[in-house]
């Protein structure tokens, strides 16, 4: 239960709420009102809450904690009103069978409370002023001057770094999407270098088979969300940094908001699917955010910088469309040695540092190809394609929502969708029965689609994905109408067997 209290919190009363004999551990956290903040002497704190929403959001956090961690019970009590130095501001108690889960849950709950629950605090200072406090994101406040921090004393003598460079690193905000084979080495070295604000985004959980290459994790982390496990590890190594975990995949729906609230200095794409690469790429370009991409296949890989401000072209200049399904396997299918993403992730970190410190020879106009076996690296100049959307004269392909790529989302939609074959009738000659059963709407009749087929969702199909997208544009992107980005033959539904979607990339 999450409660607010206008009277001092009573630990004995709160502890007695836990009664489960299966519990082998009770972890308690107390937040105390302390006498200083940011170098000033504090005389007291006043907490103000939006009570109904604080309790609602607090209960939600506890509910999520019960799903994420194997805990038995949890109670949180938060003070509101005026408090004196030394008083308890918050009390969090968590029980579990074994202590690990209670420790992890307790910490997670505190981190969530600090960012989500509508409670504010006003500090009264000994000199007499009062001020509303804005919570910082990190677990420990950063030192006043990062250039004075003894941890970086070995890198600052480099003229490429220096005290100014160290401060730039500390001010930088990095969004790292993917805490896997590429993300782990990149995160480790960027945190070590002193990048001050890191947000890690990953919806997956750590698995045994990850541990040969995803080097931030240990066996104890198996089952934990990767972003959270990675963030905890980085905070343990470098407590002076601000590290935040977003335990969900970055999608076309969530990424724009993330980019707007974070305003990152750069984004690292450490993902392993073509769909995510194109989504992240397009959104970063349109948001004006530099992006460092890397990809790995078995024993080689590449890395590049896509910087809209450099006007040196984008990924679509060279690769206008993602490759066809099944063309290229990912790590679980094709296999990979840990050293390969290890090396490429390191190159991503190097590229970030070059960007943040304004060092030369950046990969804004070239791709670096790395062959792990021979040790060879080659820089290949990237073209700038005038017809590419990044040049501003042609529109960007419509992202995500209306454009369907093979995968989980498409599989789910197809179940209830109406398929329409928008090719010309002659193209259907000789097509299998299941395609003949799909209604045909040739180009001359495209405009009639929304009225003629009132049910939703609708999936438009053609021979390769280009026409279905054009049709969608012609219709004005109405809600719940999608364009299938592959050939209609890849759909293979309407036959007696369960619809078989190609496996996701």
């Amino acid at each position, binding site marked *: 239960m999450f409660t607010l209290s206008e009277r001092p919190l009573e630990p004995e009363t709160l502890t007695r709420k836990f009664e489960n004999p299966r519990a082998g551990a009770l972890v308690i956290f107390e*937040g105390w009102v302390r006498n200083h903040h940011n170098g000033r002497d504090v005389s007291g704190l006043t*907490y*103000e*809450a*939006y009570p*109904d*929403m*604080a309790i*609602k*959001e607090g209960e939600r956090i506890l509910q999520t904690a019960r799903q994420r961690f194997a805990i038995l019970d949890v109670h949180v009590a*938060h003070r509101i009103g005026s408090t004196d130095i030394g008083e308890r*501001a*918050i009390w969090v108690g968590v029980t579990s069978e074994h202590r690990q889960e209670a420790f992890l849950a307790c910490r997670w709950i*505190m981190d969530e*409370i*600090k*960012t*989500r*629950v*509508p*409670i*504010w*605090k*006003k500090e009264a200072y000994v000199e007499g002023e009062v001020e*509303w*406090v*804005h*919570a910082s994101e990190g677990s420990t406040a950063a030192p006043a001057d990062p250039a004075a921090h003894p941890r970086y004393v070995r890198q600052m003598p480099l003229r490429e770094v220096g005290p100014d460079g160290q401060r730039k690193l500390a001010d930088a905000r990095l969004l790292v999407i993917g805490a896997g084979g590429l993300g782990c080495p990149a995160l480790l070295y960027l945190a070590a270098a002193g990048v001050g604000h890191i947000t890690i985004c990953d919806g997956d959980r750590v698995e045994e088979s990850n541990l040969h290459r995803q080097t931030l994790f240990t066996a104890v982390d198996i089952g934990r969300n990767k972003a959270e496990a990675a963030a905890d590890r980085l905070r343990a190594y470098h407590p002076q940094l601000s590290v935040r975990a977003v335990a969900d995949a970055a999608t076309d729906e969530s990424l724009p*908001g993330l980019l*707007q*609230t974070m*305003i990152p200095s750069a984004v690292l794409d450490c993902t392993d699917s073509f769909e995510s690469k194109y989504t992240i790429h397009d959104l970063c370009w349109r948001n004006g955010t530099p992006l460092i991409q890397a990809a790995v296949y078995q024993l080689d890989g590449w890395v590049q910088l896509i910087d809209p401000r450099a006007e040196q072209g984008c990924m679509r200049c060279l690769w206008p469309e993602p490759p066809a399904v099944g063309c290229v396997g990912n790590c679980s299918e094709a296999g990979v040695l840990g050293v390969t993403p290890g090396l490429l992730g390191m190159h991503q970190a190097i590229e970030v540092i070059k960007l943040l410190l304004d060092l030369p020879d950046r990969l804004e106009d070239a791709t670096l190809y790395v062959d792990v076996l021979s040790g060879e690296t080659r820089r290949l100049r990237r073209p700038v394609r005038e017809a590419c959307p990044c040049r501003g004269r042609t529109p960007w392909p419509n992202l995500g929502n209306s454009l369907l790529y093979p995968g989980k989302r498409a599989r789910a939609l197809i179940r209830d969708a109406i398929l329409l074959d928008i090719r010309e009738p002659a193209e259907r000659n000789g097509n299998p029965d299941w395609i003949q059963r799909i209604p045909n709407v040739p180009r001359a009749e495209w405009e009639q689609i929304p009225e003629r087929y009132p049910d939703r969702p609708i999936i438009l199909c053609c021979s390769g994905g280009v026409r279905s997208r054009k049709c969608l544009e012609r219709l004005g992107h109405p809600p719940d109408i999608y364009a299938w980005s592959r050939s209609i033959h890849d759909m293979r539904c309407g036959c007696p067997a369960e619809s078989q979607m190609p496996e996701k990339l």
Partner: protein
Amino acid sequence: MSTIVHVQYFAVFREKAACTKETRTTEAATLSDLYTELSRDHGFSLPPDQVRFAVNEDYVPQEARVEEGMTVTLIPPVAGG
């Protein structure tokens, strides 16, 4: 197009607006437009990207549309715990 909305204030906004709740007519289309209007009238100094919005005790995005009779709560950066 004018809509009537109720706005709830807490913390620093409550102090600057000198009230906990008000009803007003607005031309704003989205919540972020509404905040621009309110910060002009009440002298809020928080930049829009640091403000969050709640309707019915749930966070809603700043692009959410303003609707007739809705109660919006402005949430400055929280500092609980």
